[in-house]
């Protein structure tokens, strides 16, 4: 398949996207069924050509077609097959192709699963997503074409960055992009609603699973990135508040607020304007993230490409999309429905508070990330904003949320009393405090951070299970999936909090000089270095340090960290030796050879409960997916005539405070 075919496919996709953004959109405005009927075939065609372009690039990698510049820059003859496949999205240009493909895929999915939606509305959603696709296709074709050629092609390519030759790195970008692009669906729904002048609850219900799925994927992608950094980068950290990490975290925070706001708008009709605004913000922050990572405007370890010209294009694109959306919001938002009332103590208030904290947190991370820019813009001193700022602020802002979470599900819609909610939760709180102290004492983790972490995490877990008990009361069948998902997710946060608290307060780390034959003792473990030997790999050569690990008198296992040197680029990489465990990870990294006697500098970590960080986050993501699979989101809506008027507005709730359908 010649690479030019890929370029032509992209151009065709662009043409179709342009048609989709204009003709059916005009048809929706004029209520012209014939014009709107064009949308489905345009969406399908758009997807087909996006897929074709992606496959052409993939085939170029498989066949080692080094006449394609992008292939030559990101692959070589020695690169294993799996990494050749993932190299497609390993660089800037190819990753854009992945974006485009995923966007086209989501558009197709919306088309296929949305027969219940009114045609005008659905057409607008697809047309708006088409506009987004135009932007990305133009960006790719004009500034970042993956199909550019070098003729004659070099005999071999450069190597893929060894850091990327890793299973963790294969899945990280696709998962993230599923999230970013998925927020475009929520964005499409919001804009379509504004264009039409109203936001029907049915539509919000309809957009919820898409948003949940996108959010879950983003959660998984961020988690994977964190886990990968931990074992690959050799310094034992799991989050650095680096601008590129923040670029993915800000949409996540807004996305979290969004899924909760959607719940309120769907159930009670309240906050329609906030839901729309959050949907616009979530996708805009995804675009902003794309900008930050590729424009060179911020210094980061991870940045893709530093090209201010490309940055300007993305910025222009973002201005059109977000600026246009926000102008539309200013014009139309007052008109969309106001929704039901609610009292001071109610689930609405709890969720509103929750969203407020998440939105402020997102604002804080954005402020901190962009502050060096602000300071420079204003002519102030050159400053750095790093983990000490972000961690401190984040903990401050999230602590009220952690305390609040168990109250949310327990409270009734519309109106509730504190005493009713507080009683079952008081028991959870008491148990959490007692158990938290006891566990911290047993572990010897006497710091304030560890203790509050245990108490907070257990409070979340027990508080959520308290809800589980309440919800199950009087139910013959099991809980609906959206409740199961919520329980999983909230409990997952508890697990996460414990992990973070323990790792940040009780990690033991030593940098030592070790000679073969010597032993290092740490927290009851003994690490004996037996020898340091040279080892060869497929495209690298390494020094491997062989450690035997003892606990007391018992020999446990071996740990063999390596210091690798890759042939092609000469890069030196630290291959950490990791011994994962449920309650602790053992971690050894090699430093450098110290001049005498085969001695090496070695870093040994004992990281308590670090797996709980990713375990909790995975629970969070799974909870989102489970929730999204709930049938109530996917069933056809009853028509307005059939739906009993009072079903969603009555005070008929079961013990758990959920609506009971009429």
């Amino acid at each position, binding site marked *: 398949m010649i690479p030019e075919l890929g370029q032509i496919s992209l151009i065709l996709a662009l043409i179709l996207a342009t048609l989709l953004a204009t003709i059916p959109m005009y048809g929706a405005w004029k209520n012209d069924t014939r014009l709107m009927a064009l949308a489905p075939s345009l969406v399908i065609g758009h997807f087909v050509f996006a897929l074709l372009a992606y496959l052409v690039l993939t085939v170029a990698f498989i066949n080692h077609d080094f006449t394609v*510049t*992008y292939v030559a*820059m990101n692959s070589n003859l020695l690169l294993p097959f799996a990494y050749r496949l993932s190299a497609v999205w390993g660089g800037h240009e190819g990753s854009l192709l992945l974006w485009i493909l995923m966007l086209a895929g989501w558009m197709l999915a919306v088309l296929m699963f949305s027969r219940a939606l009114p045609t005008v509305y659905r057409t607008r959603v697809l047309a708006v997503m088409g506009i987004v696709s135009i932007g990305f296709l133009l960006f790719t074709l004009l*500034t970042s074409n993956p199909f*550019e050629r070098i003729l004659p092609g070099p005999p071999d390519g450069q190597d893929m960055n060894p850091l990327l030759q890793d299973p963790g790195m294969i899945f990280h970008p696709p998962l993230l992009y599923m999230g970013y692009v998925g927020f475009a669906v929520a964005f499409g729904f919001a804009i379509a609603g504004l264009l039409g002048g109203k936001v029907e609850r049915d539509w919000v219900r309809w957009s919820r699973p898409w948003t949940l799925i996108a959010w879950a994927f983003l959660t998984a992608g961020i988690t994977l990135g964190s886990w990968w950094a931990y074992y690959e980068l*050799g*310094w034992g*950290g799991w989050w*650095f508040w*680096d*601008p590129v990490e923040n670029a993915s975290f800000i949409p996540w925070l807004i996305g979290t607020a969004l899924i909760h706001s959607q719940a309120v708008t769907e159930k009670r009709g*309240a906050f329609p304007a906030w839901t729309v605004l959050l949907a616009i913000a979530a996708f805009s922050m995804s675009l902003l993230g794309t900008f930050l990572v590729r424009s060179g405007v911020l*210094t*980061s*370890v991870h*940045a893709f490409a*530093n*090209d*201010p*010209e*490309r940055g300007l294009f993305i910025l222009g694109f973002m201005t059109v999309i977000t600026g246009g959306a926000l102008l539309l919001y200013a014009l139309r938002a007052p008109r969309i429905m*106001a929704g*039901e*009332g*609610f*009292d*001071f103590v109610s689930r609405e208030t709890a969720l*509103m*508070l929750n969203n*407020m*904290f998440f939105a*402020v947190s997102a*604002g804080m991370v954005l*402020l*901190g990330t962009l*502050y060096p820019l*602000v*300071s420079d813009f204003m002519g*102030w*001193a050159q*400053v*750095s*904003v*790093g*983990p*000490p*700022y972000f961690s401190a602020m984040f903990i*401050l*802002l999230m602590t009220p949320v952690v305390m609040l979470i168990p109250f949310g599900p327990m409270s009734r819609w*519309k*109106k509730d009393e504190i005493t009713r909610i507080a009683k079952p939760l008081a028991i959870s709180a008491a148990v959490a405090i007692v158990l938290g102290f006891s566990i911290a004492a047993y572990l010897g983790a006497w710091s304030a951070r560890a203790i509050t972490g245990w108490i907070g995490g257990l409070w979340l877990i027990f508080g959520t299970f308290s809800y589980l008990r309440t919800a199950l009361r009087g139910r013959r069948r099991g809980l609906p999936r959206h409740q199961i998902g919520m329980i999983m997710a909230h409990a997952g946060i508890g697990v996460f909090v414990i992990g973070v608290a323990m790792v940040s307060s009780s990690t033991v*780390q030593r*940098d030592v*000089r070790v000679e073969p034959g010597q032993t290092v003792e740490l927290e009851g473990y003994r690490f004996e270095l037996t020898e340091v030997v040279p080892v060869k790999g497929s495209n690298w050569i390494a020094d491997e340090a062989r450690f035997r690990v003892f606990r007391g008198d018992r020999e446990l296992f071996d740990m063999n960290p390596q210091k690798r040197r890759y042939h092609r680029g000469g890069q*030196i990489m630290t291959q950490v030796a990791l011994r994962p465990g449920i309650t602790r990870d053992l971690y050894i990294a090699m*430093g*450098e050879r110290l001049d005498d006697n085969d001695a090496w*500098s*070695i*870093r040994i970590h004992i990281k308590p409960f670090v797996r709980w960080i990713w375990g909790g986050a995975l629970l969070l993501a799974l909870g989102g997916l489970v929730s999204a699979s709930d049938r109530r989101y996917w069933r056809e809506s009853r028509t307005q005539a059939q739906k009993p008027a009072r079903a969603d507005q009555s005070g008929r709730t079961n013990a758990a405070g959920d609506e009971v359908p009429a």
Partner: protein
Amino acid sequence: MKSTTGRFSFFAVTSVLGLILGTSLGWASAITPYEFNDPANEARFQALSRELRCTVCQNQSLADSDAPLAQDLRRELYEMIQDGRADMEIRQFMVDRYGEFVLYRPPIASHTLLLWAGPFIMLLIGIAIGLITIKRRRKAL
């Protein structure tokens, strides 16, 4: 790959690359086995080396950087701690030479007021909006 950057940016990029390449040719490691007589000092060393930025790296602390300059700075840090200097003094030492850029925890000063106060201002605005919203929604009850 066609370069789309202009002439000035070419020099800027190569000079930055030159700096980084130049210093990274003498490869070192972030792992430095210093001996401390007092475990509290070791904790201070670890904390400070995480708080101080490696000026020659893209975005890494002294604790995480393999650059030779980072190694030199860690050595200075170690000696200052052994010398009995206070944390504030050590930070000031670094700032005097490299500017506030070298601190990952920005100082609380007039030019960082927006940074430190910003989130709280946002929070207050959020709470105000929340209260107004609840008031309105109660009327609709």
